[in-house]
């Protein structure tokens, strides 16, 4: 006997061995003995016998026992003619020689490892998880691509600005307005890039650029989550992130959000990826992070998270030197930001659109409710993951994982806090500003950071060995359903402007002066025929009449319409309903205007009308 557990190990068996007791336990008449005795046991063909089988090597058949004889209702002595209850066994007739000691086998049974699989990364695992990631990306792409509508006013504004900036850069054409003064991102970065794509491939091309950015973001998210935790958490995190409203919409929305979130993801990826590299390597993330802020100023809100991540990711490998890593990154980013602000005149735009933005009137409860609807489920998964991660660090079923050096609970708690807390930054800031504008996009920015923890949450929900996959599937499906419906709703908020554009196309030229609820849209679509300077919007009005009297606000609209200032008036009744009502009232009974078209549309909130008046000659 060995010290190994007592289990049966098969041994080679030679059925032609000389000492094989042919018909050993068959009696001369060939029927099965009823009760084999202990001395039947010998080398070779051994009847099953509880007392003896351990002692013998060789093939052990299951010996039919007496009690195997069917005794039930179908027992028929005619079927078992020999199976008499008082049959006696017949023993072998010749003497069995004592078998020789078995020779050492010519092979070696290796020691069974403690676990039957390898924890370490393997090529197969990498390919499997990449295939799953590919599927996640395909789902994300399909969700984004199924959205359709004409350009939203922000998209139209940035693309039109991009075209103007491009003309300015290439041919020195003066800009119609100083975009830098009121844009929430640099007009020289994303808008120019998008305009180049738009000029070549149209709005769809510009939107596909955003899709590429968002797919890149999901991929980077997968990559750094894998580095932080493992493939499973990475895939789960990426799968959740890929289907939330913000990701789906930003992936088909030609604004600088997709580019900014991609750059943030890239900066984070660099920080995580260089955790074991020399401290200085973290500086690679600085220009990327600063570029993200340049593309969209609000991205600056997430820089502290990236800086703290530099500390946290470095800590397990570098200990105290990770502080240097953090400091270096903070200094690098700070220096580049300072240089950027010094070199450009963007600060005014930053102030107006981001930091000193006009406070809105949306209540905190409303904003929090909206944030919860748009990112709550994923945030809950992340919070659950963070708590679970603090309680237990082990990320692998393998018992070996227990013995790995895991970072302490404080580190884990800090990581969870930083990642989940980042998701709360945008809602908190928007509550401070009191505006729901762009909230859905900013929720998405935060979810990028919460996604790794959400991935951990999902793996914990599913449990070790995929014990409760249905829970993970349920969570993902719920997120997917919410994401699809919210994204569809979001993309239907603004009316399809194609018919409006078609109607006004023949009524605009280089000289006219036009009033529109959303001038950005016709400015973009009719950029070959008109310039932004010819269009007046519904938000700010300064008008000086022919007698030199100055009017502003509602009085300005009334006076301008009364004087027949505009050659075309396009109201949608959505963008600024109050001003639309003022203008519509001023147009009623106005001898200068004739209703050109009344175009009903259907949007997410129901139905509405484009009303278009043209100046009667």
């Amino acid at each position, binding site marked *: 006997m060995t010290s190994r557990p007592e289990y049966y190990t098969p041994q080679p068996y030679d059925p032609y061995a000389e000492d094989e007791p042919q018909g050993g336990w068959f009696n001369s008449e060939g029927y099965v003995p009823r009760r084999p005795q202990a001395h039947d046991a010998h080398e070779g063909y051994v009847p099953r016998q509880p007392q003896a089988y351990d002692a013998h090597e060789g093939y052990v058949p299951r010996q039919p026992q007496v009690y195997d004889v069917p005794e039930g209702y179908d027992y028929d002595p005619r079927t078992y003619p020999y199976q008499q209850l008082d049959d006696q066994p017949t023993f072998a007739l010749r003497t069995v020689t004592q078998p020789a000691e078995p020779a050492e086998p010519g092979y070696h049974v290796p020691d069974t490892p403690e676990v039957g699989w390898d924890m370490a990364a393997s090529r197969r695992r990498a390919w499997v998880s990449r295939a799953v990631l590919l599927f996640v990306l395909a789902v994300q792409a399909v969700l984004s691509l199924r959205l359709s509508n004409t350009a939203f006013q922000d998209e139209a504004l940035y693309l039109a600005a991009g075209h103007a900036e491009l003309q300015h850069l290439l041919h020195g054409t003066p800009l119609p307005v100083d975009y830098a003064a009121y844009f929430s991102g640099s007009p020289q970065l994303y808008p120019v890039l998008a305009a180049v794509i738009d000029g070549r491939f149209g709005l769809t091309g510009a939107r596909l650029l955003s899709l590429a950015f968002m797919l890149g973001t999901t991929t980077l998210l997968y990559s750094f989550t894998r580095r932080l935790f493992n493939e499973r958490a990475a895939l789960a995190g990426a799968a959740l992130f890929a289907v939330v409203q913000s990701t789906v919409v930003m992936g088909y929305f030609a604004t600088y959000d997709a580019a900014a979130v991609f750059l943030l993801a890239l900066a984070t990826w660099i920080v995580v990826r260089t955790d074991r590299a020399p401290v200085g390597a973290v500086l690679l993330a600085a220009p990327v992070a600063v570029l993200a802020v340049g593309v969209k100023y609000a991205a600056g809100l997430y820089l502290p998270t990236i800086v703290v991540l530099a500390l946290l990711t470095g800590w397990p490998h570098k200990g105290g030197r990770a502080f240097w890593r953090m400091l270096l990154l903070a200094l690098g980013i700070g220096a580049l930001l300072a240089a950027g602000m010094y070199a450009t005149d963007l600060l005014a735009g930053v102030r107006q659109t981001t930091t000193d933005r006009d406070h809105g009137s949306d209540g905190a409860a409303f904003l929090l409710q909206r944030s919860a609807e748009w990112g709550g489920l994923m945030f809950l998964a992340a919070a659950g993951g963070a708590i679970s991660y603090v309680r237990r660090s082990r990320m692998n079923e393998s018992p070996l994982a227990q013995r790995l050096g895991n970072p302490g609970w404080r580190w884990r708690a800090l990581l969870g806090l930083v990642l989940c807390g980042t998701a709360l930054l945008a809602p908190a800031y928007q509550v401070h500003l009191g505006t729901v504008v762009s909230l859905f996009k900013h929720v998405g920015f935060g979810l990028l950071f919460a996604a790794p923890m959400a991935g951990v949450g999902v793996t914990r929900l599913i449990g070790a060995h995929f014990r409760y996959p249905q829970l993970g599937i349920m969570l993902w499906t719920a997120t997917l359903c919410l994401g699809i419906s919210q994204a569809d709703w979001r993309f239907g908020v603004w009316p399809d402007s194609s018919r409006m554009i078609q109607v006004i196309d023949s009524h605009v030229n280089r000289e006219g002066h036009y009033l529109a609820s959303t001038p950005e849209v016709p400015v973009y679509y009719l950029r070959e025929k008109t310039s932004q300077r010819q269009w007046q919007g519904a938000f700010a009005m300064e008008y000086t009449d022919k007698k030199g009297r100055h009017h502003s606000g509602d009085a300005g609209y009334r006076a301008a319409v009364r004087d027949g200032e505009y050659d075309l008036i396009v109201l949608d009744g959505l963008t600024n309903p109050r001003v639309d009502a003022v203008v519509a009232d001023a147009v009623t009974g106005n*001898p200068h205007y004739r209703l050109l078209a009344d175009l009903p549309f259907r949007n997410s909130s129901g139905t509405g009308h484009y009303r278009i008046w043209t100046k009667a000659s």
Partner: protein
Amino acid sequence: MQLKKRFRAGCAALVCCLAGVLALGGCSLLGDDSGGPARSGAGAAPHSGASADPAIPYDVTPLLKPEKKYFGAAVPGAPNSMKNVDVYTKTVGKQPNLVEYYAGWGDGFDATGVRNAWAEGALTLMSWEPFDTPVADIAAGRSDEYIEEYATAVRRLNLPVVIDFADEFNGHWEKWGTNHVTPAQYVAAWRHIHRTFVDAGATNVIWAWSPNIVNPVRNVRLEPYYPGDAYVDWVGLIGYFTAGEDNAFDSVFGPTRDQIRTFTKKPVLLLETAAMPGERRRADIRNLFAGVEADDDMLGFVWFDHKKRADWRLEASPLALKEFKRLAADDRFGFDVRKPS
């Protein structure tokens, strides 16, 4: 072996991806039918000309003041039956591009007639006459249901239509004339009808305000009857060259035109005109063509080719008809309203 395995794994992953993509893509394919009426071009009116998309309201702007003159006719039965228009065309040698008909207040909208005329390149002018409904009632909104239904039908047709309401309002001979209706009531009714049409989105209507020429009723001032430029596209004059009057163009239409020019600059159409049969007819016709041609603000004329009170039909005077034919051949008269420019 290794390669084969990897290939199989790759294939499996690809199949999974495709299945997922198709499953999700299905949603979008199914959801695409909400693309709005812009894409559902199946019901496009066959003769809608410039606007192929029925969801785009017909833009009547180019028809408001076209470069060439309208060459119109009012013939019995048209435009519901274009037979008489075709006869008229054969008689005068030119296809009219404006066909007038008369409808009573309460009649349904003759969309078929408008379509018939459009198919031959002609605009329809409907003279809407409130025989049995007091104008004050219309102004007070008692006919709103009818107007709304009418306006919806006009919008749905999506072809341009000229409407004049209660023509010759300045005459005492009509039921809606000066003996029965005050200027304020008339203006209120006009504005009310116009507003109802605009609210229904029927922007394809050209509104022609149609007084009789002031010559027989010089004491009735027109301005109080004018609803305002916001409610009117054309001024439609009704006046005939009659016997026993000075028949110079300016004598017939001049006083009215001059009075109208004091309060509006809207272009003028001779919405109903003809010349008394007789020896002077030839000269009248010459005056008519010359007068319309001479004035840039004159949009054209509609010849009243009926035998009503007098025989206004052109065929009644062969010599005058010959002259009419000769003058109508001028390229400045008539154009295909489906391609105004």
